[in-house]
C-alpha cells in the first residue's frame, strides 16, 4: 500500500499504532521521488542521505512513545527561497547557485522542533517572480497532470511534489498567488494566511508587504496542521503579529459572496462553471450565496505591478557579489557589482527591478508608486466594507486550467493576468485558500478560492474542510513513466 497520499493525521495514527515507521514512509517518498523527479523536476535538491539518521530517530521516538507531535517524521518539501541552515538557498537564480544559508528561517526552526523531516528544496520562478516556474535558472518544473503544461508558479516545485507524492506536504510563499495558483494547477490545496501571521524571517524577500509563507497540501486538514505549527509572533519579524481577537465568520448558514469582477472577461467558462457548481453545493449545505461587487479588484494587477516591483527593486539590491553569492569580476568595485548583477539575474527579475526602480524615481513616485499605495488602501477598505455584509468571498483561483509551456511566455500581460484572482488577497493582507474541486474539459484540475477577513484563518480553514468533504475531489494525476 502507498502512503504518500494519506493525510498527516492518518499517517500519524499509523505511526502511533506501529503499523508504519517514519523510516518506511521516508523510503517510500524518496522512491517516489526517484521515479517521478526525472519527469517533474520539482525538487532542486533532495536531502536523501542526511535524513536516514533523522528517520531512525523518529522511529525510536514512536517506539518509546516520545514523539514530538503530529508532524513528527512527516516528510515535507521546502521552497528554495526559505533558508535551512547548512543548505543552499538558491531562489532558482544563478546569483545564489553557490549560496549556503548559515541560519534557519523561523518556520524551519518551528518545524524542526516538531520533528519534521525535510525532503529537500523545491523549484520556483527565480526569486519567486513568475507564474509558471519557466523563470527558474535551473529549468522548469512540469505539471504532474500533464508534463507539457506548467505547474504554475512561483511555488511550482512545491505544488508539483505534493501532487506527485514525493513529499507529504510542502511550504511555499505567496506574494500574488504563488501558493494558490500552482496548487490549483496541480490539483492540491494551497493556503495563504493573513499577512503577518506566519513569520517571514528567513524567507528571501520579493515584495515584503505582500510575501507570506503558507502550506501546500493534499487536503485542507494538513494545511491547518502546518499553518498552526508555523503561525505566531516572531521577535525577528517586526511585521509579524500576535493573534488578535477578531469577529469570526459563521461556519453554518454563512453568507458567501461571489465576486462579480472575477466572473467576467478573462475568466474561462470552465473556471466560471466550477465556481457556480461549488456555489450550488454550498447552498445545499444551507449557506446563502450572493453576488458582490468589488470594483477595485479590476485594478489589482496594475496596483500589484507597481508595488511588488518597487519593493523588489530594493530587496534585490543586496545581491551584488560583495559578501556572498556568485561574483563576476570587474576592474573596479562598481564594475564588479554591475557585472555580477548583469550575469546573475534572469530577464524577468531584471525587468521587475527596472520597473520598480522607475516607479520609485524622483518625479515618477507620486504618479506611480504613490498612487498604487493609495489605491491599495482603498481596495482594503472595499474588502473590509464587503466583509460587513458577507462571511466569505468566493472566486476561481485561476482564470483557466494549466497552460502549456511557452503558451504565455511571449505575452507578458496574459501571464500576469493568470494572477488576477489571487492578487487581491495579498494586496489587502487577508487569508485565502485554493481548493481543488473538479476537472476541466481538458481533464486538468480546477479550483475555487475562498477568502475571509484578516485574522480569521482557522475559521476559513474549518469552513473549507466542510466544503472539501462535500466536493470530494479524489482525482490523482497519472505520471507517465512513473510508478502509479
Amino acid at each position, binding site marked *: 500500500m502507498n502512503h504518500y497520499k494519506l493525510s498527516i493525521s492518518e499517517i500519524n495514527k499509523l505511526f502511533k499504532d506501529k503499523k508504519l515507521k517514519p523510516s518506511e514512509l521516508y523510503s517510500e517518498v524518496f522512491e517516489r521521488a526517484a521515479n517521478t523527479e526525472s519527469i517533474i523536476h520539482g525538487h532542486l535538491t533532495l536531502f536523501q542521505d542526511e535524513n536516514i539518521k533523522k528517520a531512525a530517530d523518529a522511529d525510536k521516538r514512536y517506539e518509546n512513545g516520545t514523539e514530538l507531535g503530529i508532524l513528527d517524521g512527516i516528510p515535507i518539501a521546502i521552497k528554495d527561497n526559505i533558508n535551512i541552515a547548512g543548505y543552499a538557498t538558491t531562489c532558482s537564480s544563478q546569483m545564489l547557485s553557490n549560496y549556503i*544559508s548559515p*541560519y534557519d*528561517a523561523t518556520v524551519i526552526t518551528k518545524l524542526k522542533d516538531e520533528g519534521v523531516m525535510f525532503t529537500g528544496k523545491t523549484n520556483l520562478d527565480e526569486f519567486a517572480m513568475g507564474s509558471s516556474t519557466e523563470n527558474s535558472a535551473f529549468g522548469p518544473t512540469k505539471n504532474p497532470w500533464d508534463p507539457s503544461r506548467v505547474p504554475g508558479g512561483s511555488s511550482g516545485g512545491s505544488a508539483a511534489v505534493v501532487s506527485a507524492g514525493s513529499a507529504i506536504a510542502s511550504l511555499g510563499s505567496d506574494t500574488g498567488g504563488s501558493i494558490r495558483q500552482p496548487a490549483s494547477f496541480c490539483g492540491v490545496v494551497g493556503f495563504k494566511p493573513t499577512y503577518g501571521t506566519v513569520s517571514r*524571517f528567513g524567507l528571501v524577500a520579493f515584495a515584503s508587504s505582500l510575501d507570506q509563507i503558507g502550506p501546500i497540501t493534499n487536503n485542507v486538514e494538513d494545511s491547518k496542521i502546518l499553518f498552526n505549527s508555523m503561525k505566531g509572533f516572531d521577535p525577528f519579524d517586526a511585521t509579524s503579529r500576535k493573534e488578535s481577537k477578531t469577529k469570526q465568520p459563521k461556519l453554518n448558514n454563512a453568507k458567501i459572496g461571489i465576486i462579480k469582477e472575477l466572473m467576467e472577461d478573462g475568466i474561462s467558462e470552465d473556471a466560471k462553471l466550477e465556481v457556480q457548481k461549488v456555489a450550488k453545493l454550498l447552498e445545499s449545505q444551507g449557506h446563502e450565496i450572493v453576488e458582490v461587487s468589488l470594483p477595485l479588484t479590476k485594478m489589482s494587477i496594475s496596483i500589484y505591478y507597481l508595488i511588488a516591483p518597487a519593493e523588489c527593486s*530594493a530587496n534585490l*539590491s543586496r545581491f551584488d557579489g560583495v559578501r556572498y553569492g556568485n561574483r563576476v569580476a570587474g576592474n*573596479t568595485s562598481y564594475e564588479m557589482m554591475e557585472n555580477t548583477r548583469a550575469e546573475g539575474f534572469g530577464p524577468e527579475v531584471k525587468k521587475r527591478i527596472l520597473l520598480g526602480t522607475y516607479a*520609485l524615481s524622483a518625479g515618477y513616485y507620486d504618479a506611480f508608486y504613490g498612487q498604487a499605495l493609495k489605491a491599495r488602501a482603498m481596495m482594503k477598505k472595499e474588502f473590509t466594507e464587503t466583509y460587513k455584509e458577507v462571511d466569505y468571498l468566493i472566486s476561481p483561483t485561476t482564470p483557466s486550467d494549466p497552460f502549456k509551456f511557452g503558451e504565455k511566455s511571449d505575452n507578458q500581460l496574459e501571464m500576469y493576468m493568470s494572477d488576477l484572482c489571487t492578487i487581491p488577497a495579498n494586496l489587502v493582507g487577508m487569508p485565502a485558500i485554493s481548493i481543488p474541486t473538479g476537472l476541466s474539459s481538458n481533464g486538468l484540475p480546477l479550483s475555487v478560492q475562498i477568502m475571509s477577513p484578516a485574522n480569521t484563518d482557522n475559521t476559513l480553514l474549518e469552513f473549507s474542510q466542510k466544503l472539501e468533504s462535500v466536493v470530494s475531489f479524489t482525482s490523482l494525476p497519472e505520471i507517465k513513466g512513473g510508478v502509479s
Partner: protein
Amino acid sequence: MKIVPTIGMETHVELKTNSKMFCRCNVVETDKPNENLCPTCLGLPGSLPVPNKRAIEFITLLALSTKCQITTDGMFHRKNYFYPDLPKNYQISQFDLPVGTEGSLEIVVNGEFSTVEIERVHMEEDTGKSTHIGSGRIDSATSTHLDFNRAGIPLVEVVTKPLIKSSKEAVSYIEELRQLVIDLDISEGKLEKGNLRFDANISVAYENDDELGTKVEIKNMNSLRSLEKAIEYEISRQTKMLNNNETIIQETRHWDEKKEVTSSMRSKEGSADYRYFSDPDIPNMILSEDFIDKIKNNMPVLPSEKRNTFINSGLSIEDANSIGKSPKWMGELYKSVSDITNDSKTSFNWITGELQGQLRKLGETSPPEWMTAEQLAEIISLVKSDKISFTSGKEILGELIEEKINPEEYAISNKLIQENDTEEISKMVKEIIKENSEVLERIANGEQKLIGFLVGQVIKLSKGKVNPSVAKELLLKEIK
C-alpha cells in the same frame, strides 16, 4: 559690497546602545574586523530588521532636549544607493517623518549667547567601513577591505538650518551638541572615535542678497580644529571666487588635513536620486504620549541648565560655558567649593587653572578620591585671608594630590603661615632699613624697583613667614 557666509551643519551621532539598530548584535569595540555580525546587519537573504527600542528612546530624548516637535506617527524609509560597505545597498533611514523637527539649541560664542536652529533629528543605521587599498578612492583602489562591525550601529542625524554665520559659531555648536549627548548619556561623544561625525554646507553671498549662494558640502573634518580651519578656508575660497565673478559649483569637497585645503570630491550636478520609500519590513513608529512623558520625566540636567546654574553662582557666561564642558567632576567640585568659599571666580580659577594644571602634569584626569571640596576650599581661604602665600597654596595643593593631608595643619607644621602681626613686621622693617641705607639712597634717586629687594630682605629675615604685601606697605610707610 560685503560678502557674508552661511553655514549649515549635518552631524551624525553614534548612540551607545548595547545592541545594533535593527538586530541583536553587540555594539562593542574590537580590533578584529567582521566580529559582530549576524544575518540582519550583514544583509543576508531573508533577514529582517527589528527596531531597537532603546535607540528610539535615545533619539526622542535628544529631540526633546533640542526643543524639537516630536513626530508621534513616524516611519522608517529605505534610502537606495549602491556602495560595497552598505550591506543591503539601501540604508534604513527616515525621510519625510523624522522623529524631531523644528528645534533649537542655545550655544555660547565669544562669551555671548546665540541660538542654532535645528531643522530635523532623524534615526538611521550606520554603514560598514571601507578601506581602499592602493588609493584613497573606490574607483582607483586595487582592492577594498570591508569591515561590517559598524554596520547597523544606531545613528542620529542632526541637521541645522543654514543660519550659522561663522566657523566659531559652528565649532561652538558642535561643542554644545557633544556636551548634550554626553550629559544625556546617549553617546560616548568622542570625536576621535567617530562618535560624532560632521559635514558642513557652506555658501557665500552679498549681504543684501535675498538668496543664498551655491552650497558646497565639506566632508572629512575629524576634529573641531579641522572644522574651524576647513570652514575658514572654504569661506575665503568662495569669497575670492565671488569677487572674481567666478561661478561656484554645487559639489562635495574633501578637507585635506595635511595640506589644509579643500578639494573637489564629486560634483552634485546630477544630484543623486535615493528613491526613498517607506520600509515595508517595519511598521509605523508610533510614539505614545506615555512613552514621551516617561522620557520627559527622566530628563537629566541639560548643559544649558548647568550653564545657567554656573552663571547664577557668579561666573561669566564664558567661564560658565567652559566649566560646563569640562569633565563632570570639575563642575561638581566647583559647585561645592564655591558654596563654601562664596567666591565663584577664585574657586573657578583654582579648579580650572591650578588643580587641572597640576593633575595634567602628573598625567591624571581627575583628582584623587580623598580630595574633598572642604580641603580645597580651606586652601583657597588660607590664601585669600593672607594666612599663606599663593605659592604656599599651590604647594599644599600639590601635597594634597599626593596624599591625604589637612591643609591648615600642613601649613602650620611646614611653617607656611604668614606673619601678619604689623608690630613684629615693623620691627623687622626698621632693622632692614637700618642695614640698607645705601639702597634707600638709590630709591630716593628714583630706583623704585629696589623696594622689591627690600621686601625680599624682610621676608628673608622672617624666614618666609611675612606676608609680602603687608611688608611692602609698612616699608613704604617707613621710607616716606
